[in-house]
């Protein structure tokens, strides 16, 4: 169990930021979602060992969040949302410096800095001054300094912000690779749901200081009835009529896009047979799931 929180309460003066959060997370990649002001940043601060909750207890990586905060920070990597660098130096010095501050011996820090910069895709530019870096490079630099000391827990705050489509794809691939290792827990806070879906297996949704939903994305999204998204080529009218006659429920959402509800007793094969008879090509056939967006909206209690 990497993160265990029991009934955490935190107030900033009179503002109740967290009201009774109980959470248990083990290995894997977890997405942290929530509307602005839901308490995500406060939760991260507590997990990072930076704030102590007024009530409740917890352990991160086995260390108590009240008494052993600096131990937590030794084994945690943090990739902040804002750009951060130190002017006048190159990437190797920068990364090695933060490795040293985490407790690595100097030479080890330098060695690991090179490895990590290559991994993050900054190999060619690691000797250049940081002020010359583009937005995408700064993002990778932040990731590099977060993993240089081989943390057991990695916090990524909006890791794809300010990146162009290529950069986003590459960072997401790096994150997927890191979280595929069995012994690093990755916690990603992001507003871009497609990113969370592509990287994370679990999700934690906060709202108004409380836990609104938590669990495996695939389980949460699963619809318990057989709804399929179908894209066709050809004249769909006949097919829709036939399907309805067979007891299916069919909704045409967009041009050539159908939502087909298959009754329990029907076989998939019958659907395809009907399509062939009507000379309609089936170009897309996939089980519908709730979108993460709908899940989010439902968890947060909006429309």
């Amino acid at each position: 169990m990497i993160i265990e929180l029991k009934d955490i309460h935190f107030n900033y003066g009179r503002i109740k930021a967290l009201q009774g959060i109980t959470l248990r997370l083990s290995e894997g990649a977890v997405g942290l979602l929530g509307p602005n002001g839901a308490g995500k940043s406060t939760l991260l601060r507590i997990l990072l060992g930076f704030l102590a909750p007024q009530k409740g207890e917890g352990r991160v990586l086995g260390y108590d969040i009240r008494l052993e905060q600096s131990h937590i920070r030794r084994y945690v990597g943090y990739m902040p949302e804002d750009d951060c660098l130190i002017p006048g130096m190159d990437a190797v010095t920068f990364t090695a410096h933060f490795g040293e501050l985490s407790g690595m011996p100097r030479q080890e820090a330098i060695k690991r800095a090179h490895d990590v910069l290559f991994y993050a895709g900054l190999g060619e530019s690691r000797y250049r001054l940081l002020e010359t870096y583009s937005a995408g490079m700064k993002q990778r630099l932040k990731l590099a300094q977060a993993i240089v000391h081989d943390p057991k827990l990695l916090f990524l705050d909006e890791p794809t912000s300010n990146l162009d489509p290529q950069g986003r794809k590459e960072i997401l691939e790096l994150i997927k690779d890191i979280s595929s290792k069995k012994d690093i827990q990755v916690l990603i806070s992001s507003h871009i749901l497609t990113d969370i879906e592509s990287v994370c297996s679990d999700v934690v949704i906060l709202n108004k200081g409380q836990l609104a939903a938590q669990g495996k994305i695939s389980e949460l999204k699963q619809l318990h009835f057989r709804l399929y998204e179908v894209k066709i080529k050809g004249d769909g009218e006949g097919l829709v009529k036939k399907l309805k006659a067979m007891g299916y429920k069919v909704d045409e959402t967009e041009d050539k896009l159908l939502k087909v509800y298959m009754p329990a007793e029907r076989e998939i094969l019958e659907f395809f047979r009907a399509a062939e008879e009507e000379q309609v090509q089936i170009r897309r056939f996939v089980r519908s799931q709730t979108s993460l967006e709908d899940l989010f909206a439902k968890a947060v209690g909006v429309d």
Partner: protein
Amino acid sequence: MTIREKGYTHWDGELKERRLPWWPITWLGIRLAFKKKYFKFIYFGSFIPAFVFLAGIYISERIEDFRYMIKGSTRILEVNPAYFKTYFTSDFLLFMMVMILVVSAAGLISDDLKYNSLQLYFSRPLEKRDYLIGKAAIIFFFLLLLTVVPGFLFIIFKLLFSGGFHFIASYPWLPFSVIVYSLLLTSFFCLYALFLSSLSKNRRYVSILIFAAYLFLDILFGFFYENFRKPAFALLSLKVNLQQLGAYIFKQKPAYPVPWYWSFLILLAICSLAYFVLRSKIKGVEVVK
């Protein structure tokens, strides 16, 4: 035969707690200072008085050999506590210390504020006091090297060239004074520079501030003193306050008839203000917004 595994690899070392967690900050700060264009020039230039005074010690001892050249028997150059006081409170030395601060210390905190790197520091096992100690140690390194080391070298040279220990015997408190005054100068300038550095995100602005505040207060003092002739105005100038204290510590007569403890109180007040502002500025930066 093996092939290197693609993808993320782990590090097989162990993270250790450091004895001095702030040491990397200090070492980095010192290296970065030396990379700056004018720093080497200014820093080594500030050692010139040290060399001059060292030479003076040599000459003052060997002046016996030149005695026959000189009419009269008075010593021209005498090495005594006043000599030390002259070195340590010289306008040039104090000014050079301010210039060193301008080049090496202006960006210490302001750069971190501007480029948001405080978040990275505090997500490490680093306390706020460690961060401040690390930054302060950079300034301590440069300034102590400029004060304590020459001070002790003077004493050693004097002993060497005079061939005996009677110098130390007559002024046994002198090494102690050297240490105390060096620490005083260094601590004051350190807090002064870090305080100003935490006030702004713009390094250029801070460097102007460090320079201008020092100069402005001195000019202000000069203006009021010339016009009103009240010695109390001496307390306006940072330079004069430091010099008054220097005179007291080296048991010399101060330049202005103002008791030394006033100067000390003023400097202490500034240091305390600096300390509290620093703590609040660093505290005010959250790791996660």
